[in-house]
């Protein structure tokens, strides 16, 4: 993979992302990735705790509209994440934890969609929420906590920052 990393790191775009002194380049992308995370994971957490039985007065079909928040957060983070990857391809792609994080995000999205299908047609009350949906919501909560830990620990577990520099 090293030749690919070397090529990406040498592109003007990658160099600009890494070396621009402007706060509106690298720091701003980090900010987008953080704010996106808060809404993406946060909306999932709110949805999960509601399915688990917290505040059953919230109509589930209305809360469904917060999937928009979830997807907005997801796309902000997909785009900002790709930009971070272009800036430092070696750093993430040589770290097994990065692939774990991507796998956990995929699992989290699958769980969210599955839970939404399970509670379809449920309006009020915990009684209406199928037991399976509640189990999945618990798994989903655990999954998002793991995503945050995996993402945050990336900075502490990388071995190579760039092709020819160590972390």
């Amino acid at each position, binding site marked *: 993979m090293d030749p690919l990393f070397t090529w990406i790191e040498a592109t003007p775009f990658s160099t600009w992302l890494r070396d621009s002194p402007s*706060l509106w380049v690298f*720091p701003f992308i*980090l*900010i987008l990735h*953080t*704010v996106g*995370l*808060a*809404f993406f*994971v*946060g*909306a*999932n*957490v*709110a949805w999960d*705790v*509601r399915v688990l039985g*917290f*505040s059953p*007065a*919230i*109509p589930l079909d*209305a*809360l469904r*509209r*917060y999937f928009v*928040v979830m997807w907005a957060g997801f796309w902000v983070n997909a785009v900002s994440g790709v930009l971070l990857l272009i800036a430092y391809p070696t750093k993430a792609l040589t770290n097994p934890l990065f692939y774990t994080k991507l796998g956990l995000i995929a699992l989290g999205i699958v769980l969210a969609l599955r839970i939404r299908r399970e509670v379809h047609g449920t309006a009020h009350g915990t009684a209406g929420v199928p037991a399976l949906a509640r189990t999945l919501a618990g798994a989903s909560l655990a999954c*998002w*906590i793991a995503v*945050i*830990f995996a*993402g*945050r*620990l990336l*900075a*502490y577990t990388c071995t190579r920052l760039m092709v020819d520099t160590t972390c």
Partner: protein
Amino acid sequence: MLDQVLHAVETYLRHTPQGEFLRTAKWGWPIFESLHFLGMSMLLGTVGVFDLRLLGFARRIPIAALHRLIPIGIAGFVINVVTGFCFLSATPDQYLFNLAFRWKLTFLTVAGLNVMIFYARVFRRLLETQPGTAPPLSARMAGAVSLLAWIGVMSAGRLLTFFRP
């Protein structure tokens, strides 16, 4: 004068048990950082979502019902005050003399004042409005200020390492 006070605070915090713990425990800092991000998500996922409702998003959700998620946001905030205070105690010089940290405290103050005004002036009247109707201007203002203040808090927090003193 202010500088002297800050230096005294710095010396004091540096020698607190939580400060020494976080400086020496091997995985202490990364784990506390992860908890800080988790607390942030709990806060934005409930308070941020409530703010969106105040702005008129998903109007069919009754305000009172959505408000019952707020304790989760408060729990997230408490996690972040505790972990944040530990970061501050571990390396106080990195925060006390950091411009981004002052911005973060400023945005936190704005968010706090907004909460007080919201509960003192806006919330009770808001509970009387029917689901499906447009929230009053005061509620939309409170929602907008809250959202912007919390985005400001997160942005300033993220910028801390770029403003190292």
